[in-house]
Structure formats: C-alpha cells, structure tokens
C-alpha cells in the first residue's frame, strides 16, 4: 500500500495528458447536456410545484425531495441498475421476457445513466432555485404583461423568465460546477471515457496513482474556473440593466 520509496514520475502522467483532456471533453459534454436538461425540467418542476392540480404537485415534490435528499451516487445507481431491474420484473409479471427476446430496452449504458442521473439531480436542485427566483419577480410584472394583451405563456416566457434567470444566475453557475464534479461518480457504473474513468484506467495500468489523480484534479479545477469565469462574462453581457 504505502510505499516509502515512492518516487514521482510526472513524465508518464504528462505523456497521458492528451488522453486525459479527451476525457475532460466527455466530462464537460455530460455536464453541459445534463445542465441543459436540468434547466428545462427544473423550470417545469418549479411550475408544477405551484400547480393547482394536486398530482402534478406530488410528482414535482417527490422528484425534488429525492434529488436533494439522497446521494447523487444512489440516483445514478438507481438509473443504471435499479430501474431496469424493476421494469424487467414488472414486464415479466405480464408474461413478457425481454431478456429471452434478446432485447434489453430498459438498460442504459453507463454514459447515459450518468447523464440522466445528473440531469435528474440538477433538475431537482434547480427547481428549488427557480422557485425562489420566480418569487423575486413581482406579480405586477405579469399583470402589466397581461394587460398589454400577452397570453399567459408569453407573459411568462418573455417577461417573467428573463428576470428569473437573472436572479438565479449565480446559483445556476454553482450547479454547473457541481455537475462537472459529479460526473466523476460515473466510475461506479463503469464509465471509462470521462476524465475520472480514463485516469483510473491509466492508474490501473501504471500504478502512478498520485501523479494521474493530481493531474486529473488540476484539470477539474481548471474546467471549473473556466466555467465560473465564462459565466461571469455571460452575466456581464446579458444583464446590463
């Protein structure tokens, strides 16, 4: 385990840098996609939570409660292992055996399981953020919009939403950073193309654990910094008022 004679071999790590950067791209891709899905679903959940139709409220509440109060790893696990198993079981109760048919329709590969799992998590967190943001937009804004003849959807889309996004922009940036770092749990469902997955494979091959993981951490750090910096730039550009 602990080797007192450990000597650093940074060259080996730096030689693997192109591979690791390729992994970083996959990491970023999962984070961005999960964030986009999370924003859209998060807005819908925030609205559903205020809906008059009770089942819609229950649905949103359940989603938000699970997303915010269970480990993200558990959520990814459920999507990768749990839900396919339950669905297979449910199907077999109706006498359908998809496995016998050679079809595995409920099974997501590790990339999609991580993407869907993190999107699920993002949506839950963002829904609560958005709800707070919506409260920050005075109801008189909707009133003014409706009185100009905008229908309910346009009033929300053109007047309320842009103001809400300003109010929640910084918490949204945090969520984005969080999403990037969360992708590393893909390793538990066999994701081997993202930054952590590639790093682990290099480690397994070379046992240069410290060098590879230190380098990976540095790359995560730089990505996170670029995202927050970029977000600040976007905010400066968008919210001049």
């Amino acid at each position: 385990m602990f080797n007192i004679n450990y000597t650093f071999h940074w060259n080996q790590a730096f030689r693997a840098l192109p591979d690791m950067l390729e992994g970083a791209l996959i990491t970023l891709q999962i984070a961005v996609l999960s964030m986009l899905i999370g924003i859209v679903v998060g807005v819908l959940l925030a609205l559903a939570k205020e809906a008059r139709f009770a089942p819609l409220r229950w649905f949103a509440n359940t989603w938000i409660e699970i997303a915010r109060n269970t480990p993200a790893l558990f959520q990814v696990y459920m999507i990768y292992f749990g839900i396919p198993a339950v669905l297979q079981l449910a199907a077999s109760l109706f006498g359908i055996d998809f496995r016998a048919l050679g079809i595995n329709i409920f099974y997501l590969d590790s990339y999609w399981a991580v993407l869907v799992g993190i999107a699920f998590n993002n949506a839950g967190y963002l829904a609560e953020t958005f709800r707070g943001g919506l409260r920050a937009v005075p109801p008189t804004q909707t009133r003014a919009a409706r009185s100009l003849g905008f229908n309910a959807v346009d009033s929300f889309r053109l007047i309320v939403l842009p103001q809400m996004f300003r109010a929640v922009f910084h918490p949204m940036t945090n969520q984005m950073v969080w999403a990037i770092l969360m992708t590393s749990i893909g390793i538990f469902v066999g994701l081997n193309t993202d930054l952590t997955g590639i790093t682990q494979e290099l480690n397994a091959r070379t046992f240069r654990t410290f060098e590879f993981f230190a380098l990976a951490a540095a790359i995560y750090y730089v990505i996170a910094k670029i995202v927050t910096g970029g977000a600040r730039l976007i905010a400066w550009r968008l919210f001049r008022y």
Partner: protein
Amino acid sequence: MIEIEDVRKSFGSLEVLKGVSMTVETGEVVSVVGGSGSGKSTMLMCINGLEPIDSGRILVDGTEVHAPGTDLNKLRRNIGIVFQQWNAFPHLTVLENTTLALRKVLGKSKDEADAIAVKQLEHVGLGDKLKVYPSKLSGGQQQRMAIARALAMEPKYMLFDEVTSALDPQLVGEVLDTMRMLAKAGMTMIVVTHEMAFAREVSNRVAFFKDGLIHEIGPPAQIFESPERPETAAFLKSVL
C-alpha cells in the same frame, strides 16, 4: 362604450364592489375619486378582466368581459392600462419595452414596431431615451414610458390607476401634462386619481366612490361646487 352594470366583487369575506353601475361614452373622460380602499382600482382591474367579478356584468363595445367565451387577450388590446407602480420591464430598454407587445401580440415587423414606438415615445418626451434601461429613468419618466407603451397598441380606451400617487411631487406635473394632452386628443379615459384639480380640469364627469359604491356621478362643476350627497361634500372637504 364601457358599460358597468351592478358589479359586485369580494376578496374573501371583504366585499369591495357592492353593486357598481356606470357608463362611459366614447370620447369621454371620467375621473374616479374617493378614499383609499373604496374599490376604485379594483373596478379598473375588472374592466379589462384582470380581476374576475362575482355578479353583474361589464360590457366593452358590447362584448361581455367576464363571459366564458370572451377572448380577453384580444379585448385587452383595446384597453390600455397604466398602473400606480409603473411596471416597466426592467430587462428591456425603453424602446424594447414599447415594441415588445407590438411585435409579439400584434405581430408587427421590427421596423414597423420601432416606428410606432419612437413616435409614441417622442410624444411623451422620451425620444432621447430609446436605448436606456428603465433603472436609469426617474419615476416620472418610467410612468411616461408606461403610457407610451400602452398607447403604442392604439387602444380605444385608456385606464389610469392612480398613476401619480407613487411619484415625487415635482414629477407629477410631467405625467399629468401627458394625460392632459391625451384627453385633448379625444381619448376615452377612466382616470382613478387623487389629483382633484386635474380631475376637475380634464373630466367630462367625475364619479365619487365610497365603500364599494358610486355615491355620486356628474359634471365636475356639480361634484366640486354643489355636490348632492353629503358623503361627497364630506370627502371633498377632507381633501381640498
């Protein structure tokens, strides 16, 4: 023509309109005066359907506002309303504030909408503020922008809900001037106001509201000089 017939409305157990009836003819300016909480503002919200009513009915050019099949979005294009809190859209420039509904509600092209908006904004003295965000404007300027934004839709009616009440005293005059100009141009207006001198000057008729009812309605000379009801006299004595 706006016809209000025996309208009643409650918020919970509080009845704010207790059978209000009033007719406003096209081209007429009617001011509505009365104490705070007497139901004046609520009545305006009912006219363009922003508030539902419990009984009675309101007709705008013969269309019943609260009938189930009424297209309120379409109806509202004919009724401009300006609020006490001016409600500028903070994320849009003065020009964008004024053109948004023209483009998205009336479907006008950008050039067309810009031309209309610029004309209206110049009219209210904001021709040099087109690219400015509302946060950089004074209350009076924001309120004038709100008037221009409503007028750009070319409504047949304009409703004003205590539009000078939230303004600093020195800014009231510029907003009243804008409304005076509009009244002279023949716009049909219902003006809820605390500015008695203004009501007296521009109105064809003045309605006195108290406790959810119109106690008296008539020409300014009648209301201000020889009110028929003791409630009217008492109110005027308290504010003048």
